[in-house]
């Protein structure tokens, strides 16, 4: 594998269309991500960013167009299908259960069992959850402190880190981050951006969505711009200035 950014993309969306009633939300969008590549996805409200992302993460299917993973056509019927193909998503709000501790959150829905296998009354392997949660967070070089803290007792940045760690547990090939810094203070935002760079080092592709263009430009290798359901820009971040990006986002009438 490796960072074959010149070769075939790891995931590819071709000619994606989506209608919501009479609204043509996506009008034949092409989108691709290589392994180890951070793609910043930007666009005004209603440009189609979250629709595109939801199609890629399996929340709903495209009305037209196809998705290829490693060159093979795939069809996602649910987020579970996307996960099985190695695509994980971190949502801004829904993420954590505040009254459960850190390991419980990371393993929610896939708890390892001492006995009982996958049954509902299987005995939880709490020791293993704590150990693996610790290893996982250490590997990401983040410090949560006491892992038995409840998610509700953590800071916004720590919560986001736990949410990302949870998504990374299955070792995905692609991580979609939808507004991961929306609720964070400056210091905490920086930590999340650092984390994105570490993912890149581990050869994980990242789709990074944010309203703060400075953040996107700080981490992205490539920027994809959507406007009114169409792709209006797809450039290496180094070749694009922020004010140019703004112009593309809002169309001709921008300053």
């Amino acid at each position, binding site marked *: 594998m490796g960072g074959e950014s010149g070769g075939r993309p790891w995931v590819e969306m071709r000619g994606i269309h989506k209608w919501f009633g009479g609204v043509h939300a996506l009008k034949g969008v092409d989108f691709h991500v290589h392994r180890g590549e951070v793609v910043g996805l930007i666009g005004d409200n209603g440009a189609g960013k979250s629709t595109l992302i939801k199609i890629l993460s399996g929340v709903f299917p495209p009305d037209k167009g196809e998705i290829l993973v490693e060159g093979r056509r795939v069809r996602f019927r649910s*987020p579970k299908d996307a996960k099985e193909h190695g695509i994980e998503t971190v949502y801004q709000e829904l993420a954590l259960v*505040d*009254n*459960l501790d850190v390991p*419980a959150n990371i393993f*929610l*829905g896939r708890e390892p069992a001492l006995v009982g296998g996958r049954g509902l009354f299987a005995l939880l392997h709490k020791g293993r959850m704590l150990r693996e949660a610790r290893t996982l967070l250490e590997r990401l070089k983040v410090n949560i402190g006491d892992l*038995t803290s409840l998610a509700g007792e953590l800071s916004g940045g720590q919560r986001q880190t736990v949410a990302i760690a949870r998504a990374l547990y299955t070792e995905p090939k692609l991580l979609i981050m939808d507004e991961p810094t929306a609720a964070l203070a400056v210091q905490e935002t920086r930590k999340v951006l650092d984390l994105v760079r570490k993912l890149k080092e581990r050869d994980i592709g990242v789709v990074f969505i944010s309203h703060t263009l400075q953040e996107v430009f700080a981490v992205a290798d490539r920027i994809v711009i959507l406007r009114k359901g169409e792709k209006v820009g797809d450039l290496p971040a180094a070749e694009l200035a922020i004010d140019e990006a703004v112009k593309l986002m809002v169309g001709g009438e921008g300053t």
Partner: protein
Amino acid sequence: MDPKTWLRRINRNRVLFPLGALALLVIVASSLSPHFLTPMNIKNVLSQVSIIAILAAGEACVILTGGIDLSVGAVLAISGSVTAVLMKWAGVTIPLAVLGGLGVGALAGALNGLMVAWVRIPSFIATLAMMAVARGGTLVLTNGRPVSGFLRSFRAIAGYAGPLPLLFLITFGVYVLWQLALSHTRFGRYVYAVGGNETGTRFVGVNVRRVKLLVFILAGLCAAIGGIMLDARLNAAYPTAGEGYELDAIAAAVLGGVSLSGGVGSLVGTFFGALVMTVLGNILNLLKVGAFYQYIAKGLILAIAAISLSRGIKFAK
């Protein structure tokens, strides 16, 4: 584990409040009445607490998922009546009659669960409907009259094992199993997760409906166990049995630190909450306070508990 973490954990389970309240009540009670700490009275309290506590166990579980079950008192009545009618009028053997009562309780709970998780009726309304239906069903089944006079072997359920009432041992056993399930199984974890963040829990792929359905079935089963216990204790099934018990069960859970918004609390706390309610009634009886005033006293205690617990949450954060 350092003492601070340890203290925070205890506080998290919120058992300190009901434990403190219980200790205070016991001290006050034993100084006010010489009869309180007699073996006879303690046995009496243990028998009384068993039925409220078993209802509260099911209720607490439903509340932990963020729901409420108003039907436990009525389900207790219909399960108790079904068992009684099967034994007295249909001549069914005791084990089968007991199974019949438990089945009716589980069925009522399952219907509650289906209404809440699949039809998406708020649990308050769904279980209010079940409360009316089950109470009416009990009256229809028994013609509104008590069914009494059971076999000695059935009444033995309310007997003693050594110094301890059997009823208490049954309840205690249910609590141990139940608390283990809550803190050590996937099911228990999902109960707390659903109460804390239902949408988020569904998002990671947990079958939230199944968890809710199970919780209501277990609450129905607990109510049925309570109904059968009450039959044995009174040697009769009254169609009005369990009236107002849903309030005692909810009060026990809330006193025990179970948060009505879901996700917080434990069965250990609920058990102490049930003890607080029972001991309070017991003291008031010993002091010959009239039943009318007892309602007021229980209501006041519940209000005080709710106030101090909600403050407690703020401090803990």
